[in-house]
């Protein structure tokens, strides 16, 4: 089937250099990103890197990521062979370690050894790099930029951190640049350097002082004075990261399920991508219930089974007993018939609701992929390919 915009997942992965998987939490974002990367490596003969944030243990195992952390690591061909696959390209994987990535960033931008050591040892820095929520968003984009500019890979598939607001990471480079170029930052630093406080800034200090205490304020200032030495490099870098996101070589894949709440969030996200002039390559809808649940004939049969369970059971029982003599209880057969029918009707409600949700989707991307519900978890390369093939269809 040719999608409305004429695009295909295959085309997307063959032409783009960066694919960013994003969307609400709990929809299979990480697995989808991994599946896309595996498919690109298997089919296109490209050198592919999947940069993931928080994979399930077994998925991490499948990608050979256990204990690997921040460094890029090649998924061995043997792992593919075990899954019955012969990749044309190479698959590499790395996990994002926020703290390590921040440290690397400081090492790169610090003007000298002493500043570098002072920053790394500063308690505020440790707090920001390790705990500061938004720093995850920023560092993911920053790391992506770094790897991309090194040019080692044909394609980088990145999984985004689970943010409270799916948009957080998009604004992260800009916010980081704003933060370090802020006038308030200069206000905060000035008095501890020159001790000159002008009238305009005085109320700010009064409030800041009362809230945080002078000592803490001094700590903050010291930290930012140190940080200021890296200011130019940092802001420039943030801007480059932002530009890369908007580049034609980058595309976004929004992942969701067809449940109302995540889907609304995904839709909002897709709209925001469009309004920021970022490329919305595809929407992948995961865990969709199978088509046969929406079959009207199926519903008729289920209703009949449910209503006539008591009447059907005695007629079926002899036939069942011939196959398995242990089946003797007619009531039990009736119960099974009713349960089975009920279960079908229950799932049909959900399956119909899902299709309604899909039909009402406000944003129509070039590629809209629907992935069926898998009855088992995906935790190996073969499973990822199975998922990948569904996305490709």
């Amino acid at each position, binding site marked *: 089937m040719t999608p409305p915009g004429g695009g295909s997942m295959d085309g997307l992965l063959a032409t783009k250099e960066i694919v960013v998987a994003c969307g*609400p939490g*709990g929809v299979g974002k990480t697995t989808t990103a991994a599946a896309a990367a595996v498919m690109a490596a298997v089919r296109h003969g490209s050198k592919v890197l999947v940069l993931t944030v928080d994979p*399930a*243990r077994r998925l991490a195992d499948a990608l050979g990521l256990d204990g690997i952390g921040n460094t890029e690591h090649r998924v061995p061909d043997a792992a593919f062979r075990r899954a019955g696959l012969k990749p044309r390209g190479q698959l590499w994987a790395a996990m994002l370690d926020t703290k390590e990535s921040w440290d690397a960033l400081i090492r790169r931008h610090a003007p000298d050894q002493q500043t570098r050591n002072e920053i790394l040892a500063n*308690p*505020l820095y440790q*707090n*920001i790099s390790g705990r500061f*929520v*938004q720093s995850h968003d920023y560092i993911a984009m920053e790391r992506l930029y770094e790897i991309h500019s090194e040019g080692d890979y044909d394609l980088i598939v990145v999984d985004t951190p*689970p943010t*409270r*607001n799916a948009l957080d990471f998009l604004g992260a480079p800009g916010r980081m640049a704003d*933060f370090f170029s*802020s006038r308030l*930052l200069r206000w905060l630093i000035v008095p501890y350097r020159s001790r000159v406080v002008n009238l305009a800034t005085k*109320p700010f200090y009064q*409030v800041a*002082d*009362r*809230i*945080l*205490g002078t*000592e*803490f304020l001094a700590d*903050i200032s010291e930290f*930012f004075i140190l940080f200021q030495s890296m200011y130019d490099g940092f802001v420039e870098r943030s801007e480059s990261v932002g530009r890369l996101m908007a580049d034609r070589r980058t595309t976004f894949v929004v992942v969701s*399920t067809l449940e*109302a*709440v995540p889907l609304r969030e995904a839709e909002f996200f897709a709209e925001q991508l469009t309004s920021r002039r970022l490329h919305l390559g595809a929407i992948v809808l995961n865990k969709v219930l199978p088509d*046969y649940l929406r079959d009207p*004939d*199926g519903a008729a*049969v289920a209703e*009949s*089974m449910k209503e*006539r369970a008591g009447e*059907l059971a005695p*007629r*079926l029982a002899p036939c*069942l007993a*011939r*196959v*398995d003599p*242990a089946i003797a*209880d007619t009531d*039990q*057969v009736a119960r*099974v*018939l009713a*349960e*089975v029918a009920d*279960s*079908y009707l*229950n*799932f*049909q409600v*959900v399956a119909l609701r899902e299709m309604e949700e899909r039909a009402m989707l406000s944003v129509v991307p070039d590629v809209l992929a629907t992935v069926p*519900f898998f009855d088992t*978890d995906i935790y190996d390369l073969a499973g990822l390919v199975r998922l990948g093939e569904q996305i490709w269809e």
Partner: protein
Amino acid sequence: MNSLLDLKLVFVTGKGGVGKTTVASALALLASTHGKRVLICEVDAKGDVAGFYEAPPTGFKEKELLPGLFSMTMDTEASLREYLKLQLRIPVVGRIGPLAKAFDFVATAAPGVREILTVGKLCYEVREHHYDLVVVDAPASGHIVGQLAAPQAINDLVKVGLIRSQTDWMLDILSDPLATGLVAVCTPEEMPVNETIELAARVREETTVQLSAVVVNRVLPELFGRQEEEVFATLGRPPALELLDELVGGEAGTVLEAARLAVTMRRTRAAHLDHLRRNIDGGVPMMYLPYLFTRSHGLRTTRQVAASLGEELGY
């Protein structure tokens, strides 16, 4: 297990997508239908709590949505303003033009400030006895520990100042297992279960708050017992299947296929559930909420979930 509703402050957390807000909304509704004066506070700032009661979004100022059920959305800047006004009577607040920006900046630069203002406001409502119960639709499990540990972290980082002087009474409320509890919501799936187990360990090690319950959401019904499973298996093969087709005048295979899917789904999930049970301290109550085969979500769903929660709590 009644004790959950007898607490004063309940934080509800969980991995994204597991139904954290649904459970928080239902818990607040349940308490209010049992005559309690309840505040539900949304900290995650998605603005959808009120939607679970089919009401328009609420702001920092609380609003009564249903009898005895009040809702508010956390806004740390508003919390700071309120605090300065109440405690310090700082007249300067009104005159500071860029307070919002200044605050934003300080809060960004000094980790823990935002968290302390959130936790502080919640503890304040508890201390002043404005409500019988405050239910918090808290940040997702990745961030909740940072929030709950904020008073302690501030104690370590900030030596003096207004914020420092406020952490002691907050810690008193948060550390009292008869006043404050954390509810972890998860679904019987791999990642949510793992995250819940990790959360339980971190809460124990890094905070003074007690994990009061684990709520397992979206539990699929068990279709058959062992004996019935054999009947089902035999029914799905010829000659029984052909006879069934004939009797119902259609293809029963589709209907049976759906049941097979339901059974497999339940089985996969049961394994995750076992893993959860084995790894959560036996003293923490577990509650189970059924998967809802409903058309949509809204007040009706919230009521259904509240009823299931009520049953689990012995109401």
